[in-house]
């Protein structure tokens, strides 16, 4: 891969991760747990309704729609950031 493109992608993922972490901080009591490998459903004490609301807010932030089958594949914050990056690319 072209190194400048790779850097752009990395920067994009970092920006997405930052927004995800910001969104999660307001929803969890222990924000120290929030990292790339954090399992969203298992590690943060969020129930399915809280996660749904979190996804809706991310959709608004990134102006994308995340299909349910994509959400089902996501486990970690890193997975989610990658999925959002792909959806942004598809929408562009």
């Amino acid at each position, binding site marked *: 891969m072209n190194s400048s493109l790779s850097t752009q992608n990395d920067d994009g993922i970092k920006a997405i991760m930052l927004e995800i972490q910001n969104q999660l901080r307001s929803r969890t009591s222990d924000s120290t747990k929030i990292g790339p490998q954090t399992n969203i459903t298992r590690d943060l004490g969020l*129930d*399915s*309704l*809280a996660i*749904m609301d979190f996804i*809706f807010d991310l*959709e*608004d932030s990134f*102006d*994308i*729609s*995340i*299909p*349910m*089958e994509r959400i089902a594949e996501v486990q970690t914050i890193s997975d989610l950031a990658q999925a959002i990056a792909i959806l942004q690319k598809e*929408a562009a």
Partner: protein
Amino acid sequence: MSSIFDKFASLQEQHAALTAAGKSPAEIRFDEIISPTEAMLDGKRTILMGTNNYLGMTFDEEAVDAAITALKTEGTGTTGSRIANGSYNGHEALEQELADFYGMRSAILFSTGYQANLGAISALAGRDDYLLIDADSHASIYDACRLSDAQVIRFRHNDPQNLARKLERLKDKPGNKLVVIESIYSMLGDMAPLKEFIEVKKKYGAYLLIDEAHSLGVMGEKGRGLCEHEGAESDIDFVTGTFSKSIGTVGGFLVSDLPGMDIIRFVSRPYMFTASPPPSVVASARKTLSRIAGASALRKKLWENAAQLYNGLQAAGFELGPTLSPIVAIRLKDAEKAITLWNGLLEAGVYTNLALPPATPFGWYLLRSSISAAHTPEQIALAVEVCTKIGLELGLTTLSNSNKANGAALNGASPSPSSASTEATDTAQPEADEPAARV
């Protein structure tokens, strides 16, 4: 030694905690059904306030007689699907009667309401299509999404603008877009802002399917539901519904005015691979459906009853769903108190539903009642009285939303059976003849 059931260990623990305080809400067994609104439970006469029996038709003499005749002439069951074993006259007659009732071109019968949503939605939305569903959709709609090959996108509950944003993102994508909403939502009894949804679906050229399960027989001058009530039937592409609520039996259907819908019979797995409704069920459904359009007196009584319960509980200071409807739900944050209230009502001879997260909006614990036209004012007044008394003991209501006279009466030695529902309060009281009024 490990067991195949080990994965349910945490669910077992939750269930044990739930039943420790009394009965299990999911395992109630009635000893005898006395009427649409009463049953014997543990030797006690119990008022049924959680049955969705909106018009009280389960004991309707004509419907029962029709079912008995069908049982004797056509037998106890069809023993197979219509695709494999053929249809009975009653299946086709009921489909024609449904189409005529809705003034639409065609109808397809399913064996349950769950299967109607499962079979209709999964077949209508194919591989290259998009399903857009309300976040608070019934499990049958969510399960239909899993069975469908379409991409599934959720929008915020009852939020046409959120739907519009999602359709805007799809506007250049090929494939059909099918929007799925419900008329009255089963947990809180809140209603879809139908006209706003119709504007959005028209703007983006999407199809709209509405599940009228809780509004058939309940809303509209002729009982056709929310779409009739809003004068919007010509803007709806598909209606699904059930016979297990106002119709008083079991079964489901899909109706549409779009030509060519019959092909669904050959692609809908929940239609093709299950036994068709038995003759007795079809006969009672036909009899009751034939009476729905003329049942305006029952509808009037239903809404009066709903207003009595809603206003009575609101006056007592409970937090309820946002809209007056025959589904009246008390919203509670505390699991233990919700379970105690539900058990207390049962001990006092009032059966309601206890709905728990994650099946409920916002993680609430819901003490859910469904009102019937067959309830008497005395039955409803008793339910309000008992609920208020236990609510006060548990600190669930401080009567802060109600007038003090009402509270004094409830704390007194002999409260009037109707006091809770007839006292004026300082909060807006929904009118019984304005079913869609939002509060």
